[in-house]
């Protein structure tokens, strides 16, 4: 095992190098620029065999990825924020054609107002596009997730987005344990798609017009492919554990034994919250943490299993649905818990928009308030905007 120091962006670019995809088509955007910049150095230095396409926009970048993937290549790209928004149309086309493209993404807020820092509104806005979504808590996880996600994507015919938090992870130096190139190659194996356009002996028609008589059936089969992702993911994550010693469940529980309340959140904030959990547990508080890592497909049973044991759960959402009803993680989690006979009370904290720092004291406050909710059984405020001036 090799230990190196790398930022989140360097870690993702390094994973891409070890994967050695056939094609990377990309357009730079802060804070994900470095991922493809570093990767293009690998190309220039002959360390990978990849055909690198410098596109004129993200829309074109992902379109080129779609073409390369239909042709039968192993294809990756990277983007953030507005870049993902510009790819939005093509996200659906890639997913609808079952093309296992992987995006190394850095979560950044969407304009307006313009801002380059972290929140999850970019990927949350694309959660119905038919792509897997993995939110990493640190660089190590981002590195590992790229490798795992690629294998799951190619096995299931479903594309994947692996993301990190802008600057907090993307630009911070971290300790990273990496595999050898050969180990990664052996783990992901050769990509042999069943159907591909360059199979010139057996020409086929890709992406035809699909009207009232068949569109619905094709969408239904796309949803079915998605329903098989979680089982495949669990298997591949276990294989990866054997190789690396690191295991990443779809939903991670941290010190939830005997806990009466929990925070349910994603990304780097989960790592910060772990520190808070350790401190408060020292003081005898019955609290725990559940981290949402895979968000598409929704790991429904895992979320039910993890959250059903608490009296109350505080979701921390790093984006808002603009429905005047809190963030997407809150809304969807409420939906999942509805089926339980005994449901925990659930409240939402929308926090950290545009990179607003979330402090230890903020997380302590959430634990204090949700503990009070569990004690009294009363929710005075279902949705709180945490850390914004002008609000309590």
């Amino acid at each position: 095992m090799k230990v190196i120091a790398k930022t989140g962006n360097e870690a993702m670019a390094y994973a891409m190098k070890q994967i050695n995809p056939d094609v990377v088509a990309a357009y730079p955007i802060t804070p994900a620029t470095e991922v493809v910049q570093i990767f293009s150095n690998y190309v220039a230095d002959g360390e990978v065999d990849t055909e690198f396409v410098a596109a004129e926009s993200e829309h074109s970048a992902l379109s080129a990825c779609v073409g390369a993937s239909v042709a039968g290549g192993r294809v990756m790209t990277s983007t953030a924020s507005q870049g993902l928004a510009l790819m939005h149309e093509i996200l659906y086309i890639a997913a609808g054609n079952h093309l296992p493209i992987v995006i190394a993404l850095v979560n950044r807020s969407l304009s307006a107002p313009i801002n380059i820092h972290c929140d999850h509104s970019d990927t949350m806005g694309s959660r119905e596009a038919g792509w897997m979504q993995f939110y990493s808590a640190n660089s190590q996880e981002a590195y590992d997730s790229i490798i795992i996600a690629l294998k799951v994507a190619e096995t299931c015919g479903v594309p994947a987005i692996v993301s990190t938090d802008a600057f907090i992870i993307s630009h911070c130096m971290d300790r990273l344990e990496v595999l050898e190139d050969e180990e990664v190659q052996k783990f992901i194996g050769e990509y042999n798609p069943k159907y591909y356009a360059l199979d010139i002996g057996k020409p086929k028609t890709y992406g035809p017009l699909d009207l009232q008589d068949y569109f619905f059936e094709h969408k239904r089969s796309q949803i079915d492919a998605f329903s098989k992702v979680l089982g495949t993911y669990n298997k591949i994550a276990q294989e990866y554990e054997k190789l690396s010693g690191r295991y990443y469940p779809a939903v991670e529980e941290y010190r939830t034994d005997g806990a009466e309340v929990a925070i349910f959140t994603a990304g780097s904030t989960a790592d910060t919250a772990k520190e808070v959990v350790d401190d408060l547990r020292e003081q005898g508080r019955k609290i725990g943490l559940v981290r949402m890592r895979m968000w598409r497909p929704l790991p429904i049973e895992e979320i039910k299993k993890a959250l059903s044991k608490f009296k109350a759960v505080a979701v921390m959402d790093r984006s808002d649905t603009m429905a005047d009803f809190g963030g997407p993680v809150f809304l969807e989690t409420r939906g999942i818990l509805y089926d339980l006979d005994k449901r925990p009370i659930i409240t939402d904290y929308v926090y950290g928009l545009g990179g607003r720092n979330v402090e230890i004291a903020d997380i302590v406050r959430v634990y204090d308030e949700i503990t009070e909710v569990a004690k009294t059984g009363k929710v005075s405020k279902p949705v709180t905007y945490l850390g914004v001036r002008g609000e309590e």
Partner: protein
Amino acid sequence: MKDVHVECQRLMDWQELAKGCLIQEAATSLNFKTGDWRSMRPVWSEDKCIQCLFCWITCPDSAIKVKDGKVTGIDYEFCKGCGICAQICPEKASAIEMIREEK
């Protein structure tokens, strides 16, 4: 008018389909006759035609029939009646006239 799917004996269930609307053959547009979309019909006059082939290269439906490098007519099974051929035809030739389709 039948499209390629309807020409199967029956409509398939979603479980039977190849992923992503893939069709296991090429050039399936040949089965999809678009001629009945037409409300205007291009009429080509061999006498006026100077064989510049502008119509052939611009027709979006490859509906200009060409043999041995010469225009021989219009394929009405596919011509959608867009009128591009008539527009592009050089003024001095004006070899294509658009007329209203009659029932």
